């Protein structure tokens, strides 16, 4: 996907309300970002395609929210909408994204980008390709600082070294002058994280930050993110399709399917007792290392979800999951189940969530 981030770096765009320094403190648990009923459409030859359709989530200081779902379910597009970085063919058709009370989606596009760009940072999914091969790592790290806060080159270099140190790049003082191709995949991902942290954001949206990395490097990067987050009480949105990663780092989880949130729950509850058949099916189909004596570990067949997720514009009527759902009944083909509270801190968009949770058949 093409991402235009040029607007994010427009110097004139920095309004006084986004000046550094007058930012309220981050108290653990305080709500920083609240997305409500977000819907995004793409223009296409077949008419408008709904890529995100009624997504809500809340990000709190010092906590990690995981946004999970399969390829194409709208994880990246929804984040780009929050950042004001949607491609020109896309538009937000509904919903709000409140950062500390201000609806970002209600601001002018330039103000939106400036405001979001200062307080909400994003590590992009294709981060490894996002680094410019002709500039040194240090130069790129502090581009935002120079543009936004008028930091001098020299001061910028000092900050860049600090940032590389922060993300544990060894020999930061020397490596700051190197070029991206001299860095390994894991190191480049650290650089991308460092550059997102340059303006000390309140909220960090990390889009698949470890997907391209080996497990051992992934473990290093995840640990690093968790440390930085705890230290700064940052709100973290971790976008991933890896349920193992989610289990290891998230506090809360929002599961997406076909552009919608279908379940939201604290991480322990979700894994112990999913309240949506899609979540349950996903969890079952993951082969796991620790499943000794379980069919999923050795031999046996993997439980699978039949069919495949729908493409935008092909979302079936009724419950979007109904053609693949092993609990579907007649009502599921006609009515859309709303995302309702089903237990304290938990919600599910399934008519029969209570059955899944309570084990009683209606």
């Amino acid at each position, binding site marked *: 996907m093409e991402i235009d981030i040029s607007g994010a770096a427009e110097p004139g765009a920095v309004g006084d309300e986004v000046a550094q320094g007058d930012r309220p403190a981050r108290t653990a648990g305080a709500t920083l970002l609240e997305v409500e009923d977000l819907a995004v459409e793409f223009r296409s030859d077949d008419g408008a395609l709904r890529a995100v359709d009624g997504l809500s989530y809340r990000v709190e200081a010092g906590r990690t929210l995981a946004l999970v779902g*399969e*390829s194409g379910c709208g994880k990246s597009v929804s984040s780009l909408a929050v950042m004001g970085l949607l491609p020109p063919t896309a538009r937000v058709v509904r919903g709000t994204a409140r950062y500390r009370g201000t609806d970002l989606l209600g601001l002018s596009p330039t103000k939106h980008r400036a405001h979001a760009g200062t307080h909400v940072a994003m590590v992009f999914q294709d981060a490894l390709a996002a680094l410019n091969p002709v500039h040194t790592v240090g130069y790129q790290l502090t581009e935002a600082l120079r543009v936004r806060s008028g930091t001098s080159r020299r001061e910028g270099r000092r900050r860049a070294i600090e940032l590389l140190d922060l993300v544990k790049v*060894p020999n930061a003082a020397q490596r700051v002058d190197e070029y991206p191709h001299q860095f*390994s*995949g*894991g*190191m480049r991902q650290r650089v991308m994280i460092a550059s997102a942290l340059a303006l000390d954001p309140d909220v960090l949206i990390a889009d698949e930050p470890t997907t391209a990395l*080996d*497990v*051992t*490097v*992934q*473990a*290093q990067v*995840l*640990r690093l993110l968790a440390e930085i987050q705890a230290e700064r009480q940052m709100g973290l949105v971790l976008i991933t*399709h890896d*349920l*193992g*990663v989610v*289990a*290891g780092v*998230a506090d809360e989880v929002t599961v997406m399917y076909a552009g919608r949130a279908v379940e939201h729950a604290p*991480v*322990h509850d979700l*894994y*112990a*007792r*999913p309240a949506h058949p899609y*979540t*349950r*099916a*996903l*969890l*079952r*189909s*993951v*082969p*796991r*290392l*620790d*499943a000794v004596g379980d069919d*999923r*570990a*050795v031999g*046996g*067949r*993997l*439980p*699978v*979800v*039949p069919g*495949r*997720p729908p493409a935008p514009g092909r979302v079936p009527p009724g419950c979007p999951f109904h053609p693949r759902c092993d*609990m579907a009944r007649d009502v599921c083909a006609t009515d859309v189940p709303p995302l309702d509270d089903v237990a304290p801190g938990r919600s599910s968009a399934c008519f*029969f969530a209570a*059955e*899944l949770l309570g*084990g009683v*058949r209606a």
Partner: protein
Amino acid sequence: MPEPVTTDTATSAPDDVVLEVRDLAKSYPVRQGVVLKRTTGHVQAVDGVSLALRRGRTLGLVGESGSGKSTLARVLVGIEKPTRGQVLVDGEDVSTMSRGARRELRRNVQMVFQDPYTSLNPRMSVGDIVAEPFRIHRDAVPRGGRRRAVAELLELVGLDPDHVHRYPHQFSGGQRQRIGIARALAVKPRVLVCDEPVSALDVSVQGQVINLLEDLQDELGLSYLFIAHDLAVVQHIADEVAVMYLGRVVEEGDGPAVYGDAHHPYTRALLSAVPVPDPTARPAEGELLLEGDPPSPADPPSGCRFHTRCWLARRLAEEHGVAGDGPEAVPERCRTEDPVLVPLGRRGDGRDGGGDDEGAHVAACHFAREAATLGAHPGPTAQASPGPGTPPGPDPDPDADPDPDADPDPDADPDPDLEPVPDRPVLESRER
């Protein structure tokens, strides 16, 4: 339609091996300079690998990016020539054969590629893609029977034979991977080399392809070399597992041995880094984090290639006083002496009657025994999580003890030897 490979004769161990590599190496020249490209060195992508693949079995190959897995795969299917070593198909050395005989043998070894999005020509119909190998191996299926063969192949992999005229973009990722598998099966191979065949697929679809591969194996007696970076997937599908690091196999054995009783520090680190989809099993302090990046295969470290990142070498030097004096403070042996694969002897009781060396568990580390005992055990966590598998409906008695053999005292430490001796007052209060 591939026919099941007959296994009517009692197979002795050597006959059982359908594909073997001996001391295989593949290096690529590193060129520098813009106008006059000079060769300034060599990348040793694969450096002395010996492996054997048995009939109807699956050998899993894991290792970090750049460890040489795909290079090995390409040499195995004949896309590239080895720099050194032998490839034997059915016991015959491929390099010493005539071209015709080689092509005939090559037919037996086909490849399934990682990316179902780029490995299929977007301008060819599905029927043409699946029939493509017939143009290379003309005698595989007589010309007149090809149309029917394609339809049967599509059916075999679970696709609608009526879709032969469709193009790849009209299929999902999982379906495209099925097309790739159908193409590989067209010339009735006996071995499929699968290079990350499910890595690009979503979890809900990945299982469909893995199950298909397992069904085909049962039906057709195929052997698989299954390359993947997902250790859980490999554990599920593989009978034997080989772990690669920087062009070498550092540990090999049957699945349970490698997963449950890993000896090489690299294998143990890999296993401990795999995220477990269970929040109650979050990584503990004992996680074996690897420091730093994999070194470049153009300039591999001296001695043991893993010594620049090895947690065990560091620990041995620091805590156990094994001479560690160099800049990296690792035992001298690790820096100077290249470890070879040695049997770990779980079954090494000296008897070699029966000729069955299956399950031989080998690792290349000077201190393999220490590795297996030191540090957090990365093996499967014993803890049973409730898991999502519980179906709705009348629950079993919630008070029922899920494990009758479980220790009756939940506070009891599983390993009393490791419990620090409590203070006196605590001991006294316990006695009451």
